[in-house]
Structures are given as C-alpha cells and as structure tokens.
C-alpha cells in the first residue's frame, strides 16, 4: 500500500517535472511579450528529437553532453522562430501573433514527420536504471529520481537567474513596461531573444526526459503542450513559481485519477480543474491581477 502510494507520487513528480519544464517557457514568453506561444509544445517535441538525432548520429554520446547540446540547439531554434515569425508582429493585433504561433507549430510537426518519420521513437536509455531501496522493501528507479532531481535543479537555476542577475531583472522589467526598458539603455530585442532561448532550452530538457521516460513522436507536443499551458494558467500565467506549482498540481491530479479512478477521466479532470480554478481565481494561483490584460 505505502509502496504504491510512493510510486504514484514519484510518477506524478516525474510528469510534473516535464510539465514544468514546458510550462516555464509559456509563462516566460507570456510575461515578456504577452504571447501565448502555441508553438511551444512543438519546441518541446523538437528538443526531444534533437536529442534523439544527436545520440543516433554519435552513438555512445553521454547524456551530460547530449542534453546541454540539445538544449543549446533548441534555444537557437527558439530564437530563430522569434526573429523570423514573431518580431515583426509584436505590435500587430494579438490574434495575428497567435495564429502565426499555431502555424509555426504545425510547421515544426510536419518538418519532423517529414525528416524523421511519423512513428514513435524510443530515446536510448542514457540514465542509470538501477533501483535504490528507500526503506524496507520500498524501491525506486534511479532514472526517475534523476529526472526529477535534474528538473528541479534547472528550475532553481532559472529562479536564481531571473531574480539575481541583471538580465533576469531586465526580463521581469519587460513585463512591466517595454518602453521604459529601452529607456534604461537595454536592447529590448535581445532580452526577448534570451527569453525565447531559455524557454526553448528548458522545453528541450523536458522533451529529452519525456523521451527517456516514455517515447517521442512528432505530435507529442500537442497533448503535452496543452497540459503545460493549463498548468501555467492554473499557476498564474506570467509567474515562474506559479508555472512550477501548477505543473506538479496538475500532474498529481492526473496520476491520482488514473490510479484510483479511471484513465479515461484524466483529461476531463484536468480541464475541469482548470475551469474550477479559474472560476475561483481568475488570475491563477500566483497570478498578479495587473498582468491579465488580454
């Protein structure tokens, strides 16, 4: 009994970690340019594929090399998308930007399907998959623990970056007042590019972990992207802490629903939770009221 509860909690933490790695990109981009970047789920997918292609190209490439490299490459793609597709629309109607983002997402899905194929792939297991005994009889797998731990470490690094560095301060300032950011002598385009880069890199980490824990396919970003988006909204979009909180909350509810009710009810419960929470707290758990001017 205790064993299954602990296993379920770990499953929830692992899924929540992946949600959070994606949700952070949604929330950061929304925080700076007020765009719900609907291509972001597909950037997560792309990150998983870049990792897959790297280990396929260089067999035996260890995760400590592959993951930072895949994150870097995905960050560059994220910056490229912002530069090519979004920047010139920054002052256009928001709907144009949202439709463009949807288009970019569809483009990425089809690009990967064309280049790599539509079938699901398994990322070669690169994490140690031994078991650790927590206490009498309760064992957990090492890869799960590592995924949770590395994800949390990335989130802590992000938090420190955003709150302790000048660039992070500038990113928070963009959410307050874009004109004033420029009047401080700050290159606004550069700050926004960095925001996309970081969000994309984190999503890539999520994609690789997802591929390690489950599998990857060109459409995985749709479902996971929506879930992470819901998590970000539940937590309060624009808030980094909120995105993490919402992700673990949503994953917990999902895993518990599957374990103790029925897997068919998983999405129903997830969306129900979103609606309920937004009725109670329209700005999300950690949302700042003045941030919601959509």
């Amino acid at each position, binding site marked *: 009994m205790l064993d299954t509860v602990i296993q379920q909690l770990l499953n929830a933490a692992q899924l929540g970690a992946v949600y959070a790695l994606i949700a952070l990109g949604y929330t950061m981009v929304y925080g700076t340019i007020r765009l719900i970047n609907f291509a972001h789920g597909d950037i997560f997918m792309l990150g998983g594929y870049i990792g897959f292609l790297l280990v396929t190209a260089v067999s035996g490439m260890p995760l400590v090399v592959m993951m930072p490299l895949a994150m870097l490459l995905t960050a560059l793609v994220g910056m490229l998308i912002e530069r090519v597709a979004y920047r010139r629309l920054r002052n256009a109607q928001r709907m144009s930007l949202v439709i463009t983002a949807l288009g970019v997402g569809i483009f990425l899905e089809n690009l990967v399907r064309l280049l790599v194929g539509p079938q699901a792939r398994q990322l070669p297991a690169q994490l140690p998959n031994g078991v650790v005994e927590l206490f009498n009889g309760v064992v957990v797998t090492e890869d799960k623990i590592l995924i949770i731990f590395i994800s949390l470490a990335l989130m802590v690094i992000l938090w420190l970056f955003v709150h302790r560095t*000048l660039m992070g301060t500038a990113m*928070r*300032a963009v959410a*307050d007042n874009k*004109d004033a950011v*420029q*009047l*401080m002598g700050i290159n606004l385009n550069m700050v926004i590019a960095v925001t996309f880069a970081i969000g994309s890199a984190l999503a890539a980490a999520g994609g690789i972990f997802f591929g390690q824990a489950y599998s990857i396919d060109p459409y995985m970003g749709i479902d996971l992207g929506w879930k992470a988006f819901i998590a970000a909204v539940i937590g309060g979009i624009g808030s980094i802490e909120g995105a993490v909180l919402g992700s673990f909350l949503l994953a917990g509810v999902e895993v518990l629903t599957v374990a103790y009710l029925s897997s068919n009810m998983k999405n129903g419960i997830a969306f129900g939770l979103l609606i309920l929470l937004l009725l109670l707290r329209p700005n999300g758990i950690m949302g700042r009221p003045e941030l919601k001017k959509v």
Partner: protein
Amino acid sequence: MGLLEIRGLSVAYGSIKALHGIDLRIDEGEIVSLLGANGAGKSTTLRAVSRLLPFAEGDILFQGTSLAGLPPHRVVSLGIAHVPEGRGIFPSLTVLENLKLATWTRSRKGSAAALYRPVFDLFPRLEERKSQPAGTLSGGEQQMLALGRAMMTDCRVMLLDEPSMGLSPILVKEVFRAIREINAKGTTVLLVEQNAGMALKIAHRGYVLANGRIVLAGSAEELARDQRVKEAYLGNRAG
C-alpha cells in the same frame, strides 16, 4: 553648436502630423523648458529624441552626430536619458532593482554603495525604501525614483516629461529643487512642463509649443514676462 539640436523635426502618428518642422537647441549645462498646452506635441518631441518614435523629416543631433536610425537603447548609451510622462518605473521590481537596471550601459566598477550614493544623497527616501517594490511608492517617491534612474544612466542630457504631474505643491517644490541640483552637478536638462510658472523659475531658456509648432522662444525671464505666456499658461494675473 548646441549639445542637442533638433532641426526641422516632423513627426506623424499615421496620417496625423503631431510636429510640423520644429527647431530647438540646448547648450551644455542649460535647463531648457519646453512649454505648451495639452496635445501641443511636447511628449512627441521627447519620444522622437529618445527614438521611441520614428521621425519623418528633419534631424536630431547630439554632439553633432545624428540620432536618426539609432535604436532607443543606443541613444541612452550616448548619454541621453528620458524620464517619460507617467514616470515609467517598474512597479514589480524593487527600488534598488529599478536603479540597477539603469546602469546597464555603463561600467559598474567600485562598490555598490558608491554607485548609488549620488542618488541616495539627493533622495534619502529612496534609500529608506530601496528593498520595497517600486509600485508601493507614493507618486512623489516614484518621480524621485524616475529621476534617480536617469541619474544612474550617467547621462549628459536629461529629458524630463512633466515631472510635476499629479504631485502636491510641496512635492513639486522638492522635485524642482532636485532637478536644479542635478543640473548644478553638470547635467543638461530639457524640461517639459505645463506648470510654466515653476518651470520658468528654474530654466535658463524656454520654448513654447502650440499645435506642433514652436510659437515662442526666449530666455526664461522674457517668457515669464510675455503677455501671451501669462495668459495661456500662468493664469490671467495682471501685471
């Protein structure tokens, strides 16, 4: 040649022209006041100088170099700081973070305490409140923060857009005293105001803008005595 020169500047919002070829010159060390009624084009002028707005015709020269084509952040690194209408502080950041961002383009050598000293000496209240979110400051304190940020950029010219707006008479006096002190320490000031009485008390020279055109220019004393300025901006006090 002036430190900052505006030559034949025209700016339009879409098809509506807001400035019709204005000329303006600011010399090193001056406080120059730009006066005018609502909608005259004062803010438009400042936003064109800081390149937040593109300009259609004319040119803006800083130390003889054209600002045309520069992005706003480059204008700041040249030494022009713009305190916008409404102050433009970052409410969710602390006072200290607001000040720190303004050091983006300059060197931050030396101790942090020494870096912020000039601002905290001028505005001790900001030091007391340095760790609180700027959004929780009073209107007067927010204006001080906006001025403090401009100081932190290490600028040679400050463009101030209605710093007295929404402040009580006591606070207006305090803000104007600070502007005078900033100027006394060597910063040139272009001061946009509707409060012409106060502005002309501290300015050396002034311009009056009406419907996007400069209609009057002269020394502060001349303008303060000018019947048209009195009627339009100083209230109808005889004598």
